[in-house]
C-alpha cells in the first residue's frame, strides 16, 4: 500500500550543551542545539516500511515542512527506507503554529494524492505520535481533520493480511483497529526498533532528488499559513526553575516527612492554587472575549474522569473573575448521574450530547457533536483534560472550530496583553512546558472564536462536591449516522492496572545505593504502594541507569536522558546520586523527595524534601508511616 510519512526536523533536546542556556533570560538558544530527525518519526519509518512491503506497489513518500536545511532529515529517511521525498518550504510558512502547520501539510498531501497517487485514495498517512520539541501531538489529528479522514493514535503494531489492522494502545489495554475507509492517518508511538541506515543506501539517498514545494505550489491560502495563519502565539518564554524554585527541606523524622509530602501533594501544584489565579479585576474595561467557560466532561466508567472535575473547579474560579457561566459538555449514550456530579463540581450548565454512537470513543463522531455545539453557543474558553482521549479529540475540535489550542498546560490565568497596536483584555494565558520540559512557554490564542487548551491531569485540585449547587441540564439533539463512524475497534488485551512509568502520578525510583536486587524489590514496591494508598494516586517503581546496570530492573523502568522522561506529581529518589543524566529525566516532577546517605549528593539540589540516612533504616520507617496515616 502507498504511504505518506510525515517527518519533522527537531532540536536534539537529549544533548543540550551547557552554553546553550541563556542564564539571564532562563531560556535556551535553540540555534546551539543539533538538528535531528524527530525520534518518534523513526518508529513511523519502520511502520511505513512494513506497510510498503505488504503490497505490490508500495510507494513511500516522505513529507516534511521546514527551512531548506530540513532536507537533511529527508536524506536521513531515504537512507533508511527507499522512497521519494518532498520538502515543503517557503518563507510564508515561518512561525506556523500547529493549526497553520496542519493546514499547510494537508495542502501538500492533496497534491501528493493528485499527482503521485493519480487521485487514488488507497493510501495511509503515518507519523510519529508527537515531536520532542513541541510535544503537542496536535498536528497529525488536525491534518486528519482538514482532510476529513480518520485518525488512529498510539499505534504500536500492524497486521496487513488479510486486511489492514492497526494495533494500538488504548486506555484500558491494547486493541486492534480496522479503518473502515481510506485514507487514514496513523500516529505511531514507540512500537519497534528503528531501521538503521546502511552505508550503501545512504550513499544512494544522497543523490536522490528531493522535490521542493512552495506554498503557492500546493495551493495554500496565504491567510492560513505561517505566523499570519496561526491561531496561537507565544507570549513569553521562561525557565522552569523560575516556576519552581527548589530548596531542599531536610527532615529527620520519616513520619513527619510523609505528613509534609502528603500536605504538599494534596494542596495541588504551585501556581495553581486559589491564591494564584483569582485576582483578576476587569475594572469596567471591555474584555476581548465574551461567553461561557466550557469543560469537556470525559467519562470514566459510570462517572466522570477526575481531570474533568479538576478543570471544572479551575474554570469556575476563572469564570467568576469575569462574571461568566461555566458549562460542561458531556457526550454519551446515557447521561446517568453525571450531570449532577458536574454541577456539584462547579458547572452552571451541562450540555448533554446523547446518541448511541457516542457510547464508544470515535474521534470523528465526538468531534462532530462537540464542534457543532461550540459553533452554535460560542463559549470563550474550552478546556480538555490532556488524557489520551483528550489529546486526540481536542485538536480536531479546535481545528474544526478554527480556534487555537495549547497542549498540556500546567497553568492557566486571566491576564491582559499589549504590544504594538494589539491590546487584549482578560484573555486566557496558557502556560506549558516546551522543548522537553527545558523551557516554559506562555501562549495566547489569537484570531479565534474560542480559546482552547488541554491541561495535564493532576495539575489542579478536584473541588469538594457541593450537592446544593443549582445548575441546568440541557439535552442537545445530536445528528449522527453510520457515515460518521470511521473505525472499528476490537479489544485484544486488557491491562487495567498496567501503567507506564510516564503516566504514573507517583514514581518511586531506586538507584545504585541499593545493595541488591532483593533490597530493591523489598523496599520500593511497598513504599510505592503505601504512598499510592495514602494519596489515592497511581504509582510506579522506576530506576536510575546505574540500578539498571546493576541488574535490579530492566531498561523499561529507567528514568533519565537515555531512559524515559517522567513528570509525575511526586518523585521519590532513593539511593540516587543525581547525575545530570538522571536529573534530565525527572526535573519536571512537581514534588521531589530524596533519600540518600551522602549529604552532598546532587539529588538534594533538585529535591523539595530530603532525608539523609541508610535505605535499610529510613525506607521501612517511611513505609510504616504511610500505613499509619492511610
Amino acid at each position, binding site marked *: 500500500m502507498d504511504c505518506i510519512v510525515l517527518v519533522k526536523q527537531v532540536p536534539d533536546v*537529549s*544533548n543540550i*550543551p*551547557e*552554553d546553550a542556556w541563556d*542564564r539571564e533570560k532562563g531560556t535556551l538558544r535553540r540555534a546551539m542545539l*543539533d538538528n535531528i530527525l524527530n525520534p518518534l518519526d523513526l518508529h513511523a519509518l*519502520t511502520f511505513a516500511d512494513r506497510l510498503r512491503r505488504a503490497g505490490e506497489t508500495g510507494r513511500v513518500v516522505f513529507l516534511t515542512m521546514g527551512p531548506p536545511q530540513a532536507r537533511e532529515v529527508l536524506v536521513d529517511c531515504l537512507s533508511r527506507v527507499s522512497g521519494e521525498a518532498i520538502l515543503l518550504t517557503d518563507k510564508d510558512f515561518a512561525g506556523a503554529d500547529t493549526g497553520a502547520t496542519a493546514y499547510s501539510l494537508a495542502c501538500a498531501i492533496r497534491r501528493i494524492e493528485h499527482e503521485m497517487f493519480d487521485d487514488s485514495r488507497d493510501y495511509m498517512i503515518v507519523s510519529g505520535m508527537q515531536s520532542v520539541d513541541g510535544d503537542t501531538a496536535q498536528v497529525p489529528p488536525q491534518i486528519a481533520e482538514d482532510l476529513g479522514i480518520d485518525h488512529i493514535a498510539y499505534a504500536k503494531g500492524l497486521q496487513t493480511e488479510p486486511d489492514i489492522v492497526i494495533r494500538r494502545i488504548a486506555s484500558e489495554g491494547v486493541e486492534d483497529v480496522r479503518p473502515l475507509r481510506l485514507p487514514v492517518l496513523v500516529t505511531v508511538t514507540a512500537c*519497534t*526498533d*528503528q*531501521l*538503521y*541506515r*546502511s*552505508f*550503501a543506501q*545512504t*550513499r*544512494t539517498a*544522497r543523490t536522490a532528488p528531493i522535490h521542493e514545494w512552495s506554498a503557492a505550489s500546493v495551493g495554500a491560502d496565504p491567510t492560513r499559513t505561517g505566523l499570519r495563519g496561526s491561531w496561537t502565539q507565544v507570549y513569553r518564554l521562561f525557565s522552569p526553575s523560575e516556576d519552581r524554585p527548589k530548596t531542599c527541606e531536610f527532615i529527620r523524622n520519616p513520619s513527619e516527612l510523609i505528613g509534609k509530602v502528603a500536605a504538599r501533594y494534596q494542596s495541588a501544584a504551585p501556581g495553581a492554587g486559589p491564591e494564584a489565579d483569582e485576582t483578576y479585576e476587569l475594572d469596567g474595561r471591555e474584555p476581548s472575549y465574551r461567553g461561557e467557560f466550557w469543560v469537556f466532561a470525559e467519562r470514566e466508567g459510570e462517572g466522570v474522569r477526575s481531570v474533568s472535575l479538576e478543570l471544572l473547579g479551575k474554570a469556575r474560579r476563572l469564570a467568576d473573575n469575569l462574571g461568566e457561566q461555566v458549562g460542561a459538555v458531556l457526550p454519551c449514550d446515557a447521561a446517568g448521574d453525571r450531570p449532577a456530579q458536574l454541577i456539584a463540581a462547579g458547572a452552571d450548565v451541562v450540555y448533554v450530547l446523547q446518541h448511541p454512537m457516542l457510547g464508544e470513543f470515535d474521534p470523528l463522531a465526538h468531534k462532530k457533536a462537540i464542534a457543532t455545539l461550540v459553533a452554535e453557543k460560542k463559549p470563550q474558553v474550552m478546556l480538555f483534560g490532556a488524557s489520551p482521549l483528550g489529546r486526540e479529540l481536542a485538536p480536531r475540535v479546535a481545528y474544526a472550530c478554527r480556534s487555537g489550542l495549547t497542549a498540556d498546560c500546567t497553568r492557566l490565568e486571566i491576564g491582559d496583553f499589549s504590544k504594538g497596536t494589539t491590546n487584549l483584555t482578560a484573555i486566557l494565558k496558557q502556560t506549558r512546558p516546551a522543548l522537553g520540559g527545558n523551557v516554559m512557554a506562555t501562549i495566547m490564542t489569537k484570531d479565534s472564536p474560542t480559546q482552547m487548551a488541554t491541561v495535564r491531569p493532576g495539575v489542579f485540585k478536584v473541588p469538594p462536591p457541593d450537592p446544593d449547587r443549582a445548575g441546568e441540564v440541557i439535552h442537545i439533539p445530536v445528528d449522527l449516522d453510520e457515515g460518521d463512524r470511521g473505525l472499528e475497534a476490537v479489544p485484544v488485551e486488557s491491562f487495567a492496572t498496567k501503567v507506564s512509568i510516564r503516566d504514573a502520578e507517583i514514581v518511586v525510583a531506586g538507584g545504585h545505593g541499593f545493595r541488591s536486587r532483593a533490597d530493591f524489590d523489598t523496599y520500593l514496591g511497598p513504599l510505592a504502594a503505601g504512598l499510592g494508598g495514602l494519596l489515592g494516586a497511581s504509582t510506579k517503581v522506576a530506576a536510575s*541507569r*546505574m540500578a*539498571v*546496570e*546493576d541488574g535490579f530492573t530492566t*531498561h523499561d523502568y*529507567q528514568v533519565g*536522558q*537515555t*531512559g524515559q522522561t517522567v513528570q509525575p506529581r511526586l518523585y521519590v529518589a532513593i539511593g540516587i*546520586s543525581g*547525575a*545530570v*543524566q538522571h536529573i534530565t529525566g525527572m526535573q519536571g516532577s512537581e514534588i521531589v523527595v530524596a533519600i540518600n546517605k551522602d549529604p552532598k549528593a*546532587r539529588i538534594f539540589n533538585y529535591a523539595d524534601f530530603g532525608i539523609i540516612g541508610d535505605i535499610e533504616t529510613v525506607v521501612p520507617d517511611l513505609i510504616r508511616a504511610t500505613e499509619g496515616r492511610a
Partner: protein
Amino acid sequence: MTAPIDVLIVGGGPAGLAAAIRLKQQLAASSGDASVVVLDKAPRPGYHNLSGASFEPACLDELVPGWRDDRRFMEHVSPVERDDMYFLLGRRAFRIPDRVVPGGMHHGGDVTISLSRLTGFLAARAEAAGVELYNGYSARTLLVEDDRVVGVGLGEMGLSTHGDKSNHRPVEEIRARVTILADGTRGVLSEQLRDRFGAGANPQVYSLGIKAVVAFPGENPFGTNRVMHTLGYPNPASVFGGGFLYSMGEKLVAVGLIMGLDWKYGDLNPQREFERYRSHPFIAGLLKGSVTIATGARTIPEGGYHALGKIVVPGALVVGDGAGFVNMEKIKGIHYGILSGMAAAETVAEGLSAADGDGVLLTGYAKRLEERGVLPAMRHARNYRQSFRWGLYAGAPLSLVQSKIPRRLGMEPDFKGTKRGARLNREDPGGMDGATFVSLTGSLHREDEPAHMTILDPAACVTCEADYANSCTAFCPGQVYRWDGSKIVLSASNCLHCMTCAVKCPLENIRWLPPEGGEGPRFKQM
C-alpha cells in the same frame, strides 16, 4: 550496489579530511576525477576530535587558501600573544624564564583553536570540494586479501544484550581501490594494519589528556590570546606530562592536564587529578568565576619516530595520529596530521593517474613526508618521550640532549607501567564529580547495545583487585568500569572513546571496538 569507490578514507579528523581535500585538488589539477569517500564514527564532524589546541596554521595556507577570510571560523581562532611556562609546587607556582624553555616549546606564531571546530571547518570545505563525507559509520575491520588492503568492514548494528533485534543489520563491506587510514589515536584499523604488516621498533605509548572548556560570565582573569603550560603539580615526578590553559576568544578558556599512561599507580584517577590541578591556588585564581561548559578526554600517541609501524602497504596508507605522527618535543600533532594527509593524497593521486586496472601503486609517501618536514621532525624528537621514562627529574635534562643520543631509547608499553601494589593514595580533591564530567562530554550510546568493550577474562579481575586495585576503575575518565566486589560492571554508555582502556589495563584484559556509528561523545568545541 553503489558506484565503485576509488579512495576510501577512514576517519574524518584533520588528517583524513586534509587527505580528502588535497586529493580532490590534485585530481582537479590533473583534470582527473575519482570518488573520495570519508567515513567517521562520530555523529557529526569534529564530535570525536579533541586537542588543546595550540596550532601551527601554516599548513592550512596551502590546503585551504584564503582560510583566514572565513569569518565564522576565524571567530574561534585566536593568535597567541602571550606564552608562559610555570612550574607548580604544592600551593605555589614559579614562572620558568623564557630562555630556559626549549625552543620547540615556544608558541609564538601559533593560534589557539578548538579541534572540533577546525574539523567541522575542514569537513565543510571537503564537502564543497566534492568529497563524500559520511558521519555515523563505524569501521571495525580491515579487509585484507592476498596481502593487499581492499577496504573495511563496518560493525554490525542492532544487536542487543539478548541477541539480534528485529532491526539487525549485518556487517557491511566497503571496498575501494585505495584505503587511507586516518582513524586517530590507537585507531582500531591502523592497529590491525600494524599487526598484519609490521609495527615499530618501540611500542607505541600514550598520554591521556583531560580537558574542560570553561566560560567566564564576568571578568576573565586568565586573559585573551594567551597560552600557558605548567609542569609539576599535581603529577607525581614519576608521571610524564603537565597542564595547560589556552584562551579561546574573550570569554572561554580551555584547561587541561596531560599524564603519561606509563604511570605505576593502580589507583591514579586522571579525572580526579584534573580536578586537583584546577584546585591549585594559582590555577584556581586564573579560572576564578568560570563555569565549566564542556569536558572531554583523549589519548595522544607519543611513542614518536621509533614507534611508527608500517605507514604504507599494498592498497593502504596511514596518516595522522593513527600512524603516530606526534612530535612530543613540541607537544604537537595536528599540523603533522594535516601534512601527512596531504602527502598521502599526493601519493594516491599520482598512483591513480598512473594506474592500470584496479591496482594502484603507492610510491613516494615517505619521500613526501620527508619533504613536508614530518619525518625530519619526528626523527629529531626520536628519543624525547623516552627520556622521561625515568621521571621528570632525569627526563628534563636528558630530553634537552635527546637528539644527540646515538641509540634508540627503549620503552615499555603503557600497560606494563602499572606496578603491582603501587598506590598513590591521594585524598579526593573535590571539584566536579565524575558523573557530571561525563555528562558534559555529551556521550551517548544505545543502552541495550552489547558493551563495545570486552573483559576478556573476568576471572583475572579478581586477582587484579589486590594487585592493581582494579586500575580500570580509576584510569577510565568515563567511569565505564566499576568493581562490585566480585566482578567488573560496565557502564558502556559512558564511554568517551579516549582509548585509555585499550592500552592501560595492566593485564591487557580489555578489548575495545567501536560501537554503532553515531554514538560516543559529542565534542562541540574541544
